[in-house]
């Protein structure tokens, strides 16, 4: 089976700091990969490399059969990779609805001249976007749809995370990258989030997901492949049980825990 995403030997250096060190993995269509590891291990940097925020110092990223290494972020989205951010980066002074509609940017095509001289077409496009966005807002847990005219900046923490996911889905991705989606959620909300992602996958069996998570309950909830990163390097990979039992993984987490105590 040909992989949807193929990451080979990716290294990301910032000056003297090696944030990601020779990491490689691949992901098939419809698969879920969970990336775990202590804070500052380089997980988000890996996301940034895949989505084109950073150009890797070395290595190659291919997606859907094409080399996307160092391609600008907006192009990567167009090819079908959508993401959320660890510290949700919503467009806080725009409404919830607008946030989702902006997520459809790569799936709409009105240009300046169209907007000016074919207002009808532009309006129809927007109307279709609104309809789609409302459906997306209704689909997830929480009551985002009822809050669709609120500025995104005024949402509660859990709703912000949900909105980020809705916005990412708006681009009709083939691969969804979720950077710690459960941060700031309580247990009930986390369970709802897991249910959301499960529902999403059953509706969209082809959608691949990469999940950065600290909450092991979320990781455990999916039939996942798990990869653990520490100090930028991959230290373990396999199914959840194997990775959890790996002594190096335990050390990475316990070491951190000990340091915090």
């Amino acid at each position: 089976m040909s992989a949807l995403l193929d990451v080979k030997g990716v290294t990301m250096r910032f000056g003297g700091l090696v944030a990601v060190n020779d990491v490689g993995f691949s992901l098939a269509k419809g698969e879920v990969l969970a990336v775990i590891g202590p804070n500052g291990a380089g997980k988000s940097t890996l996301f940034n490399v895949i989505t084109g925020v950073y150009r890797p110092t070395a290595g190659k990223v291919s997606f859907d059969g094409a080399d996307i290494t160092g391609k600008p972020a907006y192009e990567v989205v167009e090819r079908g990779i959508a993401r959320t951010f660890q510290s949700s980066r919503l467009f806080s002074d725009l409404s919830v609805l607008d946030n989702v509609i902006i997520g459809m940017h790569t799936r709409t095509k009105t240009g300046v001249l169209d907007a000016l001289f074919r207002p009808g077409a532009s309006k129809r496009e927007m109307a279709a976007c609104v309809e789609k966005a409302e459906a997306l807002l209704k689909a997830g847990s929480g009551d985002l749809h009822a809050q669709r005219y609120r500025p995104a900046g005024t949402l509660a923490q859990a709703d912000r995370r949900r909105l980020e996911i809705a916005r990412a889905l708006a681009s009709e991705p083939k691969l969804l990258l979720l950077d710690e989606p459960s941060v700031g959620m309580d247990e009930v909300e986390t369970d709802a989030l897991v249910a959301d992602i499960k529902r999403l996958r059953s509706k969209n069996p082809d959608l691949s997901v990469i999940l950065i998570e600290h909450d092991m309950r979320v990781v455990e909830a999916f039939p996942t492949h798990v990869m653990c990163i520490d100090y930028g390097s991959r230290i373990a990979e396999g199914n959840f049980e194997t990775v959890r039992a790996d002594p190096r993984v335990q050390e990475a987490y316990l070491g951190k825990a000990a340091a915090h105590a």
Partner: protein
Amino acid sequence: MERPMPSGAPSVATASLFVVASQLAGAVFLYLVLKAEGGWQVIGLLALLGAGFFLLEKKPRIADLAMASMARVPLLAVAMAAVVVLAFPFAVGSNTYMLHLLIVAQLYAVLALALNFQLGSANIPNFATGASYGIGAYVSALLAINFGVSFWLTLPVAALAATLFGFLIGIPSMRTRDTYLALVTIAFGVVVQQLLNNFDFTGGPNGLVGIPAPSLFGHSFADPLVIFGHKLPSQANFYYLAAALVAVAIVTARRLHGSRIGLAWNALRADEIAARAQGINVAWYKVLAFAVDAFLAAFAGTIYAFYVSYISPDNFTFLVSVTIMTMVIVGGMDNIFGVIVGAFLLTILPEKLRAFSDYRLLFFGIVIIGFLMIRPQGLFPQRMRDYGSHS
């Protein structure tokens, strides 16, 4: 900003009444301001205006009602606005000074709307709108003086030239931001102004004189305008021309604002990295904002050149750009109506303060600072887009 949308839309009758009454009230107020002489009248009208804004601030329902009414009877709103604008010169009569103020105010409204794409929608600094305005004015004036090109033909040519200039200033914006980008635009503005001041073919510091009046269907804009036996001074020609341009600018602004382009600009204003992650080509949208700004500004410049028939580099200085920025900020960033109000207010008010004419600029500076400190969102803050689905 955090208000939920009103639940019930007003009835057609209420909406119509509100639209007609508010527009008439606005027109009467503008007329009184233009007519006012002496310090006390102006101060009284300013107090009235202040009270109006205080009321709007205390009762946000009024603004919601206004928006809802406009949305309810859009055709009536547009028709009424057209009637008011068309009829205004008849009320003004032979008072050419009032007409002059209105023409300048309308041109500034266009410039402010042009800059609003950048400053308001995308929060990109641009201290070179004055330069685009100047390029429009000079290109069209040179074409008319040297080659006898008709005004109507110079319009698109000047706009094209300024748009190219807009793209040119836009290019550094792909890499520089905020303060650095502000300096790049300042630099472009100074370079253009200095070149106009130094080149021989632009007439140097003396500028260009004797730009011929445009004509349409054999009617020269230098002649009085006779409508239904009613004779209006020649300025009325330019008044209507400028009004048409304002209408074009409003339509442009509304269509762009309501399309995915306006949303993309808003997105990169809020968070550039997140915007990129939604697939927005941030660099292109920034350059685009510069180009659209320059395009509209050039139209205003062309009309200005043909209206006053004499232009010099002094008309297009750094201070002109700052004035335009101020209009956007005072009126309300990313609010079309607000920006127009800002332009009118800041064009007409200083003129009305002739009593203290020496201190006009001083007053101007203090007003800007005061506004930024007390009401940074402007007179009319930006509003959420309403997609009209309140199920």
